[in-house]
């Protein structure tokens, strides 16, 4: 079975600084996707960034980028120039490619941003 581990329950970052959120996963599959979702207090899950396992290049979306280490099964999220609106829970998630592809989530990390 696939598992996703986020070992840091909380992190804090100063506004305008950079923060990295860690995630490791375990799978026997070779074809899969990894995601970072943001969940603000509104409960709405918002997709931040997606990485396809077959791509060696790390995904980037504006201030958000990932460090994908397939051999190490590591998938960290870097937030640059942190903003107050980045404060939320962040979840790392895994989905194998193909039909019936449920998401497997980590427990999440609460990110606070200090003004």
């Amino acid at each position, binding site marked *: 079975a696939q598992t996703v581990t986020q070992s840091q329950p909380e992190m804090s970052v100063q506004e305008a600084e950079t923060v990295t959120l860690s995630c490791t996963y375990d799978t026997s599959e070779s074809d899969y996707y990894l995601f970072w979702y943001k969940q603000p207090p509104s409960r*709405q*899950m918002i997709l931040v960034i997606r990485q396809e396992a077959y791509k060696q290049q790390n995904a980037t979306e504006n201030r958000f980028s990932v460090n994908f280490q397939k051999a190490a099964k590591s998938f960290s999220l870097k937030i640059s120039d942190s903003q107050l609106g980045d404060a939320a829970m962040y979840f790392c998630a895994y989905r194998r490619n193909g039909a019936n592809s*449920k*998401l497997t*989530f*980590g*427990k999440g990390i609460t990110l606070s941003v200090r003004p």
Partner: protein
Amino acid sequence: GAGVSQSPSNKVTEKGKDVELRCDPISGHTALYWYRQRLGQGLEFLIYFQGNSAPDKSGLPSDRFSAERTGESVSTLTIQRTQQEDSAVYLCASSLIREQFFGPGTRLTVL
């Protein structure tokens, strides 16, 4: 366009009562998922619908939980004889190809 909607937003019920939660997916999305999020935890998969195929019920925690979906439209998640451990946020997501788009969830509180 409209996103995934869920109702009610919040539901408070008494232990032993039945509850029904509703999900309206994005129009045209063939796949629909239900997840449960306990306080301070990640999301747990409950059930998955894909078109007219038999649903994947492998995540349902007990036979008190059931779900239905009419074609590729709305879905209802029913919890019978609710227990306090059923208190959680229930999130629905719909998908066409790869991305799952989530609704705002229903917060269920069982007293």
